């Protein structure tokens, strides 16, 4: 006599993405997004990155986004801003 067992999952797992996003060849003309998750000293270091990028020249703009929580995605309006305006993004967190 055989035994039937049901699959307990919500479906197959997606293939994990192991590779980093391709590095931009240049920041010339780029609009840079800086996304802080708010953990630890991330605000401080990413504000510094924001400032450096703003002063660097060559970029056409920098958009700074701070997530409302370390544990949730950016607000929908911030997502929209990133998607519609940004060509290169830097995300980070700090301990």
């Amino acid at each position: 006599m055989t035994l039937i067992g049901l699959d307990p999952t919500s479906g197959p797992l997606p293939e994990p993405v192991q590779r980093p996003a391709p590095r931009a060849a240049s920041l010339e003309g780029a609009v840079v997004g800086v996304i802080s998750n708010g953990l630890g000293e991330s605000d401080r270091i990413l504000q510094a990155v924001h400032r450096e990028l703003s002063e660097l020249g060559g970029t056409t703009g920098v958009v700074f986004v701070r997530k409302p929580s370390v544990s949730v995605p950016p607000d929908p309006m911030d997502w929209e801003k990133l998607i519609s305006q940004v060509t290169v993004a830097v995300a980070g967190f700090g301990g």
Partner: protein
Amino acid sequence: MTTLQAPAHEYRDYAELLDDYYARGWTDGLPVVPPTPAAVEQFLAAAELAADTVLGAVPTREVVVTAEHAAINAVMAGCRPEYMPVVVAAVRAHLNEKANCHSVTGTLSGASQAVVINGPARLRLDVNCQAGCFGPGWRANATIGRALRLVVRNVCRAIPNFLDRASYSTPARYSFCFGEDEEGSSPWVPMSVERGVPVGTSAVTVHSVMTMSSALDLGSRTPEGVLDSVAAHIRTRGVATDEWLGIDNTVMLVMGPEHRRFLVEAGWSKDDARAYLFPRLKEGERPVRIGKPDGILIVGAGGPGMSETWVLFPHLAWAITEPVVPEPGGEP
């Protein structure tokens, strides 16, 4: 009753099923009960739910959790069918937006999910609320907590080294379920009633626990003395929260019989304890980030012998309370 949707697999015997479920990553490492279609249908019937009833979702993982998912994993965990309404309430609570499933099950800190049961279901299902209530030995405690964790793993995809990124994790992730000793805490108001569930209705509160430790105080004999010790203990670690969680964040105190007795005999209610604790948590240069007195949840549980209160420090989530529907064993 809707048709079951889960793919079915056929095995020669239990040993083959067990090996295959483990190989597929569908277990917590311990043996599971085979989730046969008949058993799953029986669990759904016990909860009076159609298989496709949606219990909640994890949007960041593109996961929707149905009653069928919960039933399959509850069978696997070793639950009895009559536990199913409690498991459903726990799953609903865990999937509340502010219970923050994505964060609390993915965090490096390895938070666990404490499932606290109130009301008549505790007695009907033999949920341990007293000595040993955090540990092994009671089927309801062991399997209800395990069922939630299997849902978290199998349905919500919190698989170690995949979406579960815990540095160490914790044995409390096998199972962490206990009841409030409502009878032993009389005349205190049960936690579920304080949180809006009618008296006599069973309820489940799910609280995600980043760390837990004992505020041991063998010497104090007064409410003030006990609560000063508890406040000092909470202040050593603080409470995780942020803007998104807002002021409704929670920390849970599980108070043992000795500490409870000193408060009850002096006529202190849970509200009195909160009123005393709250300003003591907020004072000083580094106040505890708890938004309001109601955020201090007090549960009477545990056995005698150690004058202690366990503090269940939260991860980035609220404790969420859900009524158990239907009542296991019928209306009380």
